[in-house]
């Protein structure tokens, strides 16, 4: 029985390896803020969602499958949360049943506990069946319809009754019948617990039957403590196998609930985020993913969801049409929203490729094979290597994992040296990446670099600038515009050092 809400044909894999740049992505795109908002206090939600967001889907069909499922969730939030509750209650309820972790464990205890766990599960399966019976008609997505159909089929009334019967039969029995053979050293082996013949029939047979089996009986002396212990050991050997099978069955059934919980977790987290953004009045939309290879990034009102979650007021969205563009270079004022813009692009790409909605009025992009970030880092933790060294080493690590149709987001990279050298490094790297069909977004203050690309008048490059109104006022919007030589640092200097036009944000560091 498979849940298959995350993928049409296989389980969501928690153990799957995340991309090698997982940490850099998390840090540079400030994923932590987003994930915490999605998960609330639930560690499990957090972990599943983190894995889902960082393990991008490439296949359009798979993305649409998740979008369909998520749309159903947004339409029926109470039903979905109810099913999730049942899954959580079962998986946590199991842990409350006294376990076999004590050193005196015996097969008897394993047997007993397994029966208890399975009984709990049967109750929960019934509850699940009830929800399905009541609400199945309200769901349209392929994922939910398949799941509900399967639950109806597999958890028939007849089946549930049968399971209950089997479990109660094992708990009460008059004596233990164990079959065995002679194994190594003529000691008993291949023990198996057997069903005793119906008691009444058995007794009748014994009284009236002609072929009553010859049997030898040994009665232990009541003082024979060792013997009593040995006999109970013997019984333990006898039921070892069936106890194992029961415990494994309990695991399997619990596994189903765990899987149900895991396959729903991502959607529950998306529902949480959706509610938070909706409450702020921020728009969201289901993105239109396009096949890889084309260059079709375009959006309206795209904003950085992490920033939106942090701020009280609404945040500024950006528009862009970058069809047929491989290179986007963003220049302009400090604290003008360039980094935020870059983050919003990375985040939207990740959200689109995990099947979620996107923080924008509309969003469309080609899927990428991998998303990489190369952001300027404030601190040099390595001590040994200089800052440029460290930057180049990180770049080299990225190149190790790059292929065509990946995206690299650069944020003020290679600025840890003089502008001429830095520009030359940037130019060489970017030119090589473009030739290898890698999509590049580059926020830079390196005028020489930006200008040299601009002068080439490449049809596949587009230039954006952090908007600045005459008089120095920032709009935090990023608009089309060629690179300019100054970056308005003077404004900031004036504001911070000379106290001109004070604002609450004036204590923030001078970075974009």
């Amino acid at each position, binding site marked *: 029985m498979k849940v298959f809400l995350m993928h049409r044909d296989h389980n969501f894999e928690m153990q799957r390896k995340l991309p090698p740049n997982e940490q850099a992505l998390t840090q540079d795109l400030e994923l932590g803020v987003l994930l915490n908002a999605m998960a609330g206090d639930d560690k499990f939600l957090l972990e599943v969602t983190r894995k889902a967001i960082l393990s991008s889907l490439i296949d359009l069909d798979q993305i649409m499958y998740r979008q369909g499922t998520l749309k159903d969730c947004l339409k029926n939030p109470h039903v979905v949360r109810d099913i999730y509750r049942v899954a959580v209650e079962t998986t946590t309820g199991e842990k409350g049943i006294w376990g076999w972790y004590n050193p005196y464990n015996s097969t008897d205890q394993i047997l007993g506990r397994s029966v208890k766990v399975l009984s709990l599960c049967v109750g929960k399966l019934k509850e699940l069946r009830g929800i399905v019976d009541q609400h199945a008609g309200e769901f349209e997505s392929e994922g939910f319809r398949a799941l509900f159909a399967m639950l109806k089929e597999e958890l028939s009334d007849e089946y549930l009754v049968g399971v209950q019967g089997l479990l109660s039969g094992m708990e009460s029995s008059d004596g233990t019948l164990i079959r065995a053979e002679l194994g190594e050293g003529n000691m008993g082996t291949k023990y198996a617990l057997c069903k005793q013949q119906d008691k009444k029939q058995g007794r009748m047979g014994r009284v009236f039957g002609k072929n009553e089996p010859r049997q*030898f009986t040994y009665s232990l002396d009541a003082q024979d403590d060792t013997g009593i212990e040995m006999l109970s050991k013997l019984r333990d050997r006898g039921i*070892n196998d069936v106890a194992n099978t029961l*415990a494994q069955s309990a695991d399997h059934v619990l596994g189903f609930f765990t899987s149900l919980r895991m396959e729903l977790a991502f959607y529950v987290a998306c529902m949480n985020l959706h509610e938070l953004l909706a409450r702020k009045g921020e728009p969201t939309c289901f993105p239109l993913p396009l096949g890889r290879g084309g260059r079709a990034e375009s959006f309206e009102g795209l904003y950085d969801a992490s920033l939106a979650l942090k701020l009280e007021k609404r945040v500024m969205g950006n528009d862009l049409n970058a069809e047929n563009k491989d290179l986007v270079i963003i220049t302009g004022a400090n604290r003008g929203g360039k980094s935020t813009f870059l983050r919003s692009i990375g985040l939207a790409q990740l959200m689109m490729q995990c099947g979620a909605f996107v923080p924008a009025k509309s969003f469309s992009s080609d899927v990428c094979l991998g998303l990489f970030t190369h952001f300027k880092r404030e601190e040099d933790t390595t001590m040994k290597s200089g800052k440029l060294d460290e930057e180049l080493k990180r770049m080299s690590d990225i190149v190790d994992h790059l292929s065509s149709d990946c995206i690299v987001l650069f944020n003020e990279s290679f600025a840890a040296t003089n502008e001429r050298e830095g520009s030359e490094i940037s130019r060489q790297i970017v030119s090589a990446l473009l030739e290898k069909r890698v999509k590049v977004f580059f926020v830079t203050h390196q005028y020489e670099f930006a200008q040299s690309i601009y002068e080439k008048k490449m049809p596949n490059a587009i230039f954006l600038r952090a908007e600045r109104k005459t008089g120095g006022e920032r709009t935090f919007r990023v608009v089309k515009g060629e690179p300019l030589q100054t970056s308005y640092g003077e404004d900031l200097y004036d504001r911070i050092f000379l106290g001109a036009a004070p604002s609450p944000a004036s204590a923030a560091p001078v970075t974009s």
Partner: protein
Amino acid sequence: MSFHSILYERPEDGIKGQGPAVPDFFVDLNLNQIVDAIIAGREEYGLRPFFLAPLKSVDAIKYRHEIMQELESASLHDAVQSFSQSMHAMREYRGRSDRILNVYVKQGWFLNALEAYCEAVSRLANDLAALAPKSRGLSSFLEYLKKYSESGDFTLLVAETKKVRADLSGAKYALLIRGNQFSVRKYEGEAEYSAEVEKTFEKFKQGAVKDYRIKFSDYLDVNHIEEAALDFVAKQYPEVFQSLESYCSKHADYLDKTIATFDREIQFYAATIDLVAQVKASGLQFCYPGVSDKSKEVYSHEGFDLALAIKLMHENSSVVWNDFFLKGNERIFVVNGPNQGGKTTFARAFAQLHYLASLGCPVPGRDAQLFLFDKIFTHFEREENINDLRSKLEDDLVRIHIILNESTPSSIIVVNELFSSSALPDAVFLGKKVLERIIELDAVCVYVTFLDELSSLEKTVSLLSTVKPENPEVCTYKIVRRPADGLAYAQAIANKYQLSYERIKERVRS
């Protein structure tokens, strides 16, 4: 020639009695560490004596090389391994059978032992026949094994063993436990619970499962409950147990002596090959050396100290290899250079290679030509013995004197920092005297010293341990042929600090 031993083609070459005592040089050369590593985990075979007995003829070495090389092939190695495992199991079962008093259980384990023995012999006979080994040792053993495994006695043993086992397996029974009472009867096909449980929850099955079965300790002993149950089973199936009894008494003396000896001796090869494979996995090479009892023109490429390699392997680092050769009338390596530079290691490696070669084992290195010595002598620094009244210098002299008296032109002598505690002129004088004696003797020798003066005598080759040119504090552990001029190290330091003769001239303005 009929088969005698897989280690010695001729009976007279074999070990007599307990075998030789551990020689003095074993500890100096760290050969004890090597042998310990080789035989580790195989204590039951008592292999150490074989590693203490160097062979005396080139042909005896070749006899082992042939076998060892064949056993390095995976298929032969596996065949021997499964044979050994079965024989090991046989001894285990036999031991249990001997220890236990209950007659049914005793007979049960005895049957297990014989099953393992039949399996070991039949399988090895099949495997070897299919692999058709070419070496003298293995092919003549195969001949013997074939004859034995096709003999009437053995085939009868196999047939009867199978029959008794089949009968016993057929004796299925059922235990009914109720309170403090249990009954035994014949099993009548009652349905098992496990199957039904499994079927019921089949639909939930996914992936790997945990094993909840409790591991019950093996039956090393039998308690009275089990005995009682077994008695009842025997009563249910009396014919089966009667035939088991007569089988056991009939085959009490089943073990063939030649096969038992082979089982032990083949471990010499298996153990060596296993260790060699482990060391190879860390990127080092081994070879079957050419061995001569006449020519002292020896060489080795990429040889190394095996004891050190084993130690470093466990620390996940690797040993540095070295080349060496002696040509024409060269007999003596005089090794000079900085402390901790690998001089002693080189000396050990040289002697280890020769010793391992004399056992018929592969030796460290890409290829090698080695000398079959009659005796090895080592003179290494000893912890000073305060009970001994002789001075250290005197002690050194006494020891080297004994060595020189006992050695022959076919001996190998390894000397490590002789007279290091005496005054320099004394050390030079005595060192020269000792070297002259060795030169006269024409023995092969490695002489590790801190004295440059000793490296230019006849028949000697001067070797130097080297340092990294860019960082003279770091030894490379490479030993190269180079005259000892005492300048290499100083030169390197000068370069590092831009203070070489040329650089000082350039830097100092005129």
